């Protein structure tokens, strides 16, 4: 290894270093392929290659689109819903004539571009956080798709399918591979244009790009439009491949698309990476299916194996980081022996809070407002929108609604999101993201039942939270110390936990929540559910935790700028470990609460909470880029999401319309979050 680096020209070495992500992506794919080839009786035939490309093309093309947005330092959650939109649009409308085929293929791609334009306008021109804009458009597009086709159906002409699924060169080159290659060629051409340069520039540093005269807004807008069009291409291919429309086929692709992007060596921090790696990533994901079959991995272990493979693949890419971490650890051990470290740390912890500004106005109220202007600015939109939704609900259901029972339900249901918000919020403020929330909720709920009857009795809830926190700390270790990407690490932990839960229960969870937990969640004291009192204490404690403690100061420092935090004497790794442990403990708490609320743990009960846990954090004014956010804001977000959901559940309109309204209100709520 050393020999090659020294003999190779500096240009090659630099190019290798720059394309390290791509190399890792390719090596991972090659490793999976070799492993498969070695264990398949007949080896990989042309048929296998051809069918694998057909299965992968949709994911690969969508991942190329998502990569472009990620390079611009954005995140596009609308990808899955756009795939379904195009799919249904084409399946419903296309008829046998060649003209119709071309027209509807183009219209399908155009619909994707239009959604991209919608996202781009809100993200680039109105400067709203991309994650929440695309979350809103995801709901709106899902609603519109259901209006176009409310159940699987529709059919596309056989000619359309066979064109995209045939061989470009018989027994040598399948058409889906050609399509992916054409899209990739388009990407490389784009990358070579000034737009390509601008794209990487705005992703690396928007300020620097602006200073160099890059048109930041149009570049970002362009990125979303191109991405949307590519999701459209993916949806069009999917339609050809499956020959029909299905409104539920796209949304589950969201997470696989992001995994393909990260496996492809594109970091979510923007400004780096490329689309070729995403194709390798998509192929790797698809070949894992074959790998599971060849090794006959039992169903309950499938997600465990997938999770471990993800971690392995990414670990291979952070070899350097592991060496560094090990060296740092040795250094720390040596320092500890000289006992210099702890003293320094203690000094840091004793640092006083920033002094009050002397120029504050005299009036107490105005002084408070000025001092908390940032907090107010970020949390006010959620509360204003909440007020609007509340007024609308009270007018809409006037006569049949009793105030006491309405607000009781509102606070009980908000409790879940509020607790999740503290955990997810802390992780986001620290610059990360926790995708292991759903499996952690289920794991906690299921284990509560198992351990209560399994001998732990009254200690089961505590044991569950402690074990969860330990698992969270492990994720934090992988992220903070080894340098794994938060998205990959927590997604892998999510998969492993899913499997562990299934194996531990045999698919059928036993036992119920202890009586006192059920009472807390469903009982009544003077018409009020007891958990509401605890919620108030929790909100107070969580606000203080995120505002007044040294943990919070370190967290915000790490989230704003980890390098600066490190040089200020903050242990970045330790802070991240604490944040992920807190997030896991909060998720576990929600699992326990949900079990008490529903009377029993269900093996799918955490699934609906992933996106809401992120949404409340962002609606509450927390920046996805880290370093900013308050718990009061997030609590406002939790109240708003719950109130909105309650209002929509009560009105008699089809789900499709409800989805559109939900998306629109979320978007309206965050318009107030405009960054200026």
């Amino acid at each position: 290894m050393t020999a090659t680096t020294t003999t190779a020209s500096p240009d090659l070495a630099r190019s290798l270093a720059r394309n390290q992500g791509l190399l890792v992506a390719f090596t991972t794919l090659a490793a999976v392929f070799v492993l498969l080839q070695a264990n398949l009786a007949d080896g990989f035939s042309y048929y296998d290659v051809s069918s694998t490309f057909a299965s992968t093309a949709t994911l690969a093309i969508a991942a190329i689109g998502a990569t472009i947005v990620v390079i611009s330092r954005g995140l596009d959650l609308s990808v899955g819903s756009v795939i379904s939109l195009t799919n249904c649009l084409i399946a419903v409308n296309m008829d046998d004539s060649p003209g119709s085929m071309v027209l509807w293929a183009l219209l399908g791609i155009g619909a994707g571009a239009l959604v991209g334009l919608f996202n781009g306008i809100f993200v680039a021109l109105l400067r709203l956080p991309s994650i929440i804009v695309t979350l809103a458009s995801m709901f709106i597009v899902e609603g519109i798709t259901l209006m176009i086709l409310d159940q699987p159906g529709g059919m596309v002409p056989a000619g359309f399918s066979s064109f995209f699924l045939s061989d470009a060169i018989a027994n040598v080159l399948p058409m889906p591979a050609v399509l992916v290659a054409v899209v990739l060629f388009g990407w490389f051409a784009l990358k070579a244009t000034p737009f390509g340069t601008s794209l990487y520039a705005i992703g690396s540093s928007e300020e620097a790009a602006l200073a160099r005269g890059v048109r930041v807004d149009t570049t970002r807008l362009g990125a979303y439009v191109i991405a949307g069009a590519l999701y459209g291409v993916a949806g069009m291919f999917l339609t050809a491949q499956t020959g029909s429309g299905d409104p539920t086929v796209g949304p589950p692709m969201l997470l696989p698309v992001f995994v393909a992007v990260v496996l492809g060596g594109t970091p979510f921090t923007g400004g780096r990476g490329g689309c070729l790696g995403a194709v390798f990533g998509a192929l790797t994901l698809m070949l894992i299916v074959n790998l599971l079959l060849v090794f006959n991995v039992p169903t309950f272990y499938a997600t465990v194996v997938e999770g471990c493979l993800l971690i392995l693949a990414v670990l291979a890419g952070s070899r350097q980081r592991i060496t560094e971490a090990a060296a740092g650890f040795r250094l720390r051990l040596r320092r500890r022996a000289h006992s210099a470290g702890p003293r320094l740390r203690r000094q840091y912890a004793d640092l006083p809070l920033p002094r009050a500004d002397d120029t504050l106005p005299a009036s107490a109220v105005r002084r408070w407002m000025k001092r908390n202007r940032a907090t107010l600015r970020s949390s006010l939109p959620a509360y204003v929108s909440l007020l609007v939704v509340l007024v609308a609900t009270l007018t809409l259901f006037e006569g049949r609604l009793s105030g006491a029972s309405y607000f009781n339900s509102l606070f009980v249901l908000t409790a879940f999101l509020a607790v999740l918000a503290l955990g997810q919020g802390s992780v986001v403020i620290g610059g990360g993201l926790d995708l292991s929330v759903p499996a952690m909720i289920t794991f906690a709920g299921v284990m509560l039942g198992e351990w209560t009857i399994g001998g732990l009795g009254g200690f089961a809830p505590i044991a569950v939270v402690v074990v969860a926190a330990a698992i969270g700390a492990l994720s934090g270790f992988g992220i903070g110390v080894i340098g794994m990407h938060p998205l990959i690490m927590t997604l892998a932990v999510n998969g492993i936990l899913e499997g562990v839960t299934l194996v531990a229960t045999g698919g059928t969870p036993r036992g119920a929540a202890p009586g006192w937990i059920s009472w807390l969640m469903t009982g009544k004291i003077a018409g009020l559910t007891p958990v509401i009192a605890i919620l108030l204490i929790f909100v107070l404690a969580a606000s203080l935790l995120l505002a007044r403690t040294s943990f919070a100061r370190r967290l915000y420092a790490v989230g704003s700028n980890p390098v600066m935090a490190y040089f200020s004497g903050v242990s970045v790794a330790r802070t991240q470990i604490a944040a992920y442990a807190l997030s896991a403990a909060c998720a576990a708490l929600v699992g326990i609460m949900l079990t008490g609320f529903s009377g029993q743990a269900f093996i799918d009960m955490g699934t609906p909470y992933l996106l809401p846990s992120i949404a409340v954090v962002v609606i509450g004014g927390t920046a996805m880029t880290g370093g900013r956010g308050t718990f009061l804001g997030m609590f406002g977000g939790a109240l708003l999401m719950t109130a909105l959901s309650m209002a929509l559940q009560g009105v008699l309109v089809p789900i499709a319309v409800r989805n559109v309204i939900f998306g629109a209100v979320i978007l309206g709520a965050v318009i107030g979050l405009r960054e200026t």
Partner: protein
Amino acid sequence: MGAGSIRSLVAGAALLAPLGVGAASAADGEPYKIFLSMSYVGNDWQAEAQNMVSAMARAHPDTVDLQIQVAGPVAQKQIQQINAMVQAGAKAIIVYPISPTALNPAIKNACNKGVVVFAYDSSVTEPCAYNVVTDQVALATQSAEWVAEQMGHKGNLIFMTGVPGTSVDTDRNAAARKVFARYPDIKIVAEPNGMWSQAVARKALTEVLATTNWDSIDGVWGATACVQSWSLQVEAGDKDLVPCGAEGTNGMRVMMLPEGSIEGASGTYAPMGAPGISLESHPGAGAVALKLALDVLAGKTVAKTTLMPLEAVTSSTAKLCKEGTFDELKAGCNTFDPALVPSGWFANIANPDTPEIGFQAALVGQPE
């Protein structure tokens, strides 16, 4: 607690058992290589369905070499999986389809290579495949009709829906709406979305009941609607439980038993004489599909569509099982002791056509 630990032991053995099935094959020629492609495993219904298929395979060790794989919720992965199964030399593929249409080309390709393909629970539209399904229209019509009658054909109804965009949800809702539309005095006052998940149903019903109250509700219809509705009513102190249809959980059936008929049951997972009709997609469809696939492989003619038995259990026919053996189930028991299975466990496992399948098959994959 003793029964519990025995159960986990059996469950542990069940995990190892697929190896045994493969090994016990050599008796009479080669057993058929059969694959089960599941879309996901993360809920009670799927777990039971998988157990029953395993039990069916164990009941025919000489003819079946079963391998079970899960594809996850992405249709493309199931397509890839089916293709890989064909390449791995499958004689038959049993599939729980993630989409009724998206898998068609992969299924057609399998058929062309001489593989027998069975879809269960949700049907696929590819004509070469065999479907083993529950008649969703009949299920919805029968249960809606029963609820309407119990309501005296008038009053306010909560109409709970499932996963939007799926054929099963669309078919059920349309059929039930048709029934309720026949009675102009029945008014649908809310349509909460329960997503076929008890936890989501609980949340959705709580949301609906925040803007209305139980006094004004005369009936509830929808999958995963009943246990949660009745529990909420009990918690709200309302003793006058509303008529409800239709879910297949043991929780619902236990609640339908006459009050006090099970000793030691506590909380809301206890007999309370609730008025309900229990009907749900049969979790044994996969096991039937496997059995029929063996028939096809043996050269017998099998109908392209097989309907699973649709046996409605109402408050007057709910009956507690002792052991849950096939014979006992055949004699008409249909509900299990709360100490044996959780509330969300599906109790609609009886099927006169599969003597291999009893309670132990659904719980741990052990054939009769």
